[in-house]
């Protein structure tokens, strides 16, 4: 998948800049992690890439791409796990029951098929949300803090699935506060602060020789 180009993205909320981008080209190779302090604009950046925040002034090259986003906390319909996958059939009429069963199997949800989705644990909900996004066969899957508040086992499970899918050709952009995780699975880092993209570079280079002072300070504080 080609790199992501964002141009003329200027978002404010009550006068406070949320995202300020004149023009930037972001890497989209295997797994890219978006990091930055709370309120830096990570989620907003992800939503702009996913097309969930739009504006006639924005110029991006993402509109024609098949992108799916999993939110930090996905709300589910008051139905079973199966029912929550079933609604995808309205978006993808060719989706078969076999494909849905396969996705449930991949994400270890088969035994929860008839459980109300709203009563699943945080880890199970996240697996369901990612399974649903996976069924859309996106070129790019965007994950907003996919393992926040999950236990180590659930975290490792999600990470392993992301890595597997990345090997099979799917591209990922994920926001994370977990530096260890970012180092484990990502190939590129986008560092964002105060709504501005400070640095976009390979993960190893970012942590070993950050190009800006702001990045250096951030790494020094968190590592």
């Amino acid at each position, binding site marked *: 998948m080609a790199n992501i180009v964002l141009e003329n993205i200027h978002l404010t909320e009550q006068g406070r800049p949320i995202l300020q981008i004149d023009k930037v080209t972001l890497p989209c190779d295997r797994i890219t992690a978006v990091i930055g302090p709370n309120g830096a604009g990570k989620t907003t950046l992800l939503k702009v890439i996913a097309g969930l925040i739009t504006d006639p002034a924005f110029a991006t090259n993402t509109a024609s791409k098949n992108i799916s986003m999993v939110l930090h906390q996905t709300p589910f319909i008051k139905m079973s796990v199966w029912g929550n996958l079933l609604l995808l059939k*309205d978006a993808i009429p060719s989706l078969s029951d076999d494909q849905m069963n396969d996705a449930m199997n991949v994400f270890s949800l088969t035994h929860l098929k008839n459980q109300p989705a709203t009563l699943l644990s945080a880890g199970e909900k996240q697996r369901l949300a990612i399974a649903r996004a996976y069924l859309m066969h996106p070129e790019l899957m965007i994950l907003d803090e996919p393992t926040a508040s999950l236990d180590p086992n659930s975290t490792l499970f999600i990470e392993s699935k992301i890595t597997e899918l990345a090997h099979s050709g799917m591209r990922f952009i994920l926001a994370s506060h977990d530096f260890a995780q970012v180092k484990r699975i990502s190939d590129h880092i986008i560092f964002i602060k105060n709504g501005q993209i400070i640095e976009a570079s390979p993960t190893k280079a970012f942590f070993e020789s950050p190009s800006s002072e702001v990045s250096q300070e951030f790494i020094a504080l968190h590592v």
Partner: protein
Amino acid sequence: MWDTLYQAFSLVFNLDPEVWSIAFTSISVSAIALLNGVILGLPLGAFLAIANFPGKKWCLTILNTCMNVPTVIIGVLIYLLLSRSGPLGDLGLLFTKTGMIIAQTLLTTPIIAAVSRQIIADAWQSHRDTFTSLHLRLFHQMKWILWDCRFSLVIVILLGFSRAISEVGAVMIVGGNIAHHTRTLTTAIALETSKGDLALSLSLGIVLLSIVLLANIAAHFLKSSAERKYG
């Protein structure tokens, strides 16, 4: 007073044919009007909650106004439309149950649409990004958000039913309160009270209250069982 109460309960429990005929007319007219209100009002409420279009604020203002229009005004408007000299006079619907259903549909639809819009708009805040990300079209978004809110919307349907079955002004004007034909619980209560037959009036009131109470209990049971199942 105690004698009147005793006579009223006797009429109800002895299955007085007149009482139950009036109750049946009330329930059937209100149920059909409610069904119409649900079929029209819920999709309209969902559409207004989800869709963005120019003039949406005006639509909401008009809807909220319709919700508060006095029932007698609706009655007069429908009367004018259905009367012999009116544009729909040839249909012969004045002083019929169909005419009453039309009037009650006009009463239930705005209230169902307006209140459901508010409930759905709140739910939409949390579902919007997910539905958009799943590339669902507007019609499917409406369908699933309605389904997600179904247990909360039971209260809206109950509200619509209460509005229909307890209404007196419009059905009196459009239905004409004709015995064994268009006489409903509310119009009969008004009539019997003015005639001084308080026992019959009170018995009809007991039936009306019982219907509303049963509907409330059913709605409460449905909502609480859903909360137990889905949290």
